[in-house]
């Protein structure tokens, strides 16, 4: 099975139902299937060996994605915010790409195709003879450049078999009624943008695209399009809640919105509490996944959120900050540095196994071990009930005098303080310890907290080695557009000797 079959099935079951809308442009499943097949013919005839999408999301994104799948070519969405030279260096790493670009004067005189003109041409071509069965399930469906927050971007490889395993394992075919619509505002180069296309198509849930996220526009679109489902990165959730508050709203008035999924970065506990209060009738799902695992591998569902919220047991309440339990077909293990499997409550590296787990890069090949386990490079632990908690990237671990300290552990304690909204903990250079613990903290509005009181607060629950030696107060933490905390920037700010003064 391959990705293009997902669309063939949807088009067979409901050819006239609307598949995707972006502003005034819309395509039904039948139309999407037809133009995707025509696009495949164009890609093949051009001699291209990959399809690169360098623009914002539009209905043509879906055409390019499924078209590449019919043609059996890797689809490569690239961050449209990159500079021209960054974009060029990535394109140079691709095999004969067919390039889509919104820019009129695309880089360096290379040939590129404007998405809207491309779609217009396809509609004249008529139907092409492409059968989904022709694409090899082991061929590469998607190649995604990782965000490269730790160096030169690597490109992750996802084969048709991985993506299809994810969809078949997590989505029921045609399970969405015609009244359902999902608002997609994550960028097309994020794995969540790709999995949203596939999940929505297979469940036959209409996609409403918001190409450039803006909280007020998101709210307007959700209302006008009677949106029932949405996926957001944590920073988007926070901004939506802020806009509603600024309007004086106690709760959002979006009666159709029944499901909000979030993921892609750490959600501060206070932010999810605020969001739950603002959307009391929506079910919240926290999704944890990686590009290398074809998106989601564990979920904290609406029932879990409710149970945690209503419980008086601190262990159960803490699950609000958990990423839930593995999807069916996914196994998760926590291991120590020597590879020994750890017990519940013990922190270590998170390993994952399952048919949707690709764990492969163009540059390095497969990183799966001989038993097909993939090391996520995330640290965390499982609790007694099997709920997974994240403690940060293993690359972010602070080594203080030979002792490993996970930033997440300290952040969680800081965020328990009533005067703190959010905290980011990093290692800074220390003559005495090699690295020392430091924190950037966003204080709650109207609260005055001192460095000393927070240090004392951390020492109440953690060993003294975990206590931040330096704390700065900031208005907000630096995130990229897909909700990933930019630890390098936090580190830089904290390493600055002048950064000792509160900056609010």
């Amino acid at each position: 099975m391959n990705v293009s079959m997902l669309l063939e099935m949807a088009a067979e079951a409901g050819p006239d139902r609307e598949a995707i809308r972006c502003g005034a442009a819309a395509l039904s499943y039948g139309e999407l299937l037809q133009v995707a097949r025509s696009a495949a013919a164009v890609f093949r005839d051009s001699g291209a060996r990959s399809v690169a999408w360098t623009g914002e999301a539009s209905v043509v994104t879906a055409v390019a994605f499924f078209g590449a799948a019919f043609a059996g070519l890797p689809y490569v969405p690239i961050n449209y915010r990159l500079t021209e030279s960054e974009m060029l260096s990535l394109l140079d790493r691709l095999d004969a790409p067919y390039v889509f670009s919104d820019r009129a004067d695309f880089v360096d005189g290379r040939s590129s195709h404007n998405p809207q003109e491309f779609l217009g041409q396809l509609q004249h071509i008529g139907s092409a003879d492409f059968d989904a069965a022709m694409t090899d399930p082991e061929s590469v469906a998607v190649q995604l450049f990782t965000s490269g927050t730790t160096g030169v971007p690597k490109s992750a490889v996802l084969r048709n078999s991985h993506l299809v395993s994810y969809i078949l394992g997590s989505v029921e075919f045609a399970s969405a009624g015609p009244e359902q619509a999902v608002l997609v505002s994550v960028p097309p180069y994020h794995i969540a943008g790709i999995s949203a296309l596939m999940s929505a198509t297979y469940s036959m849930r209409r996609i409403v695209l918001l190409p450039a996220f803006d909280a007020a526009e998101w709210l307007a679109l959700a209302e006008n399009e009677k949106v029932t489902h949405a996926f957001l990165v944590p920073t988007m959730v926070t901004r939506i809640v802020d806009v509603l508050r600024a309007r004086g709203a106690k709760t959002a008035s979006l009666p159709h919105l029944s499901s909000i999924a979030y993921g892609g970065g750490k959600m501060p506990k206070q932010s999810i509490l605020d969001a739950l209060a603002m959307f009391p009738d929506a079910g919240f799902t926290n999704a944890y996944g990686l590009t290398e695992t074809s998106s989601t591998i564990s979920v904290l569902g609406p029932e879990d959120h409710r149970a945690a919220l209503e419980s008086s047991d601190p262990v159960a309440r803490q699950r609000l900050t958990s990423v839930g339990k593995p999807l069916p077909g996914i196994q998760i293990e926590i291991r120590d540095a020597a590879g020994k499997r750890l017990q519940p409550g013990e922190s270590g590296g998170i390993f994952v196994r399952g048919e949707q787990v690709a764990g492969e890069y163009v540059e390095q090949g497969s990183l799966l071990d001989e038993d097909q386990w993939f090391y996520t490079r995330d640290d965390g632990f499982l609790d007694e009930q099997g709920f997974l908690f994240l403690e940060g990237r293993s690359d972010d671990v602070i080594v203080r005098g030979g002792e490993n300290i996970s930033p997440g552990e300290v952040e969680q304690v800081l965020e328990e303080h009533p005067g703190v909204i959010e905290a980011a903990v990093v290692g800074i250079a220390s003559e005495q310890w090699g690295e020392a613990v430091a924190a950037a903290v966003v204080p709650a509005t109207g609260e005055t907290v001192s460095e000393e009181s927070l240090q004392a607060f951390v020492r109440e629950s953690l060993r003294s080695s975990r206590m931040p030696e330096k704390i700065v107060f900031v208005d907000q933490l630096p995130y990229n557009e897909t909700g990933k905390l930019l630890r390098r920037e936090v580190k830089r700010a904290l390493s600055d000797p002048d950064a000792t003064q509160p900056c609010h």
Partner: protein
Amino acid sequence: MIVLKPGMRLKSAVSDVQVMVVKGSTDNPVALCCGGVPMIDAADASPEASEGAVEGSALMGKRYTNPEQTIELLCTKGGDGELSIDGEALGFREARELPSSD
């Protein structure tokens, strides 16, 4: 008799039904039928339509399993004819209640 391998696609010899193998029969050859007639490779030419109605049907998007749940098929195209393995009718799995995560 055929060994079912994951990813394998088969079609009915009596209707439009097509299936894809999700979980295979490991190394055991089985008799997979639709409407009582052995299913054929999806790439093969379809035989002439046979006379007479077939009983039952297969529904697109449903996942069919044998009672032991060792073999699983996804119906990628619905149509007439009950699916069976070694003479035993296949049932479809109930929808899973997973929250939408993307």
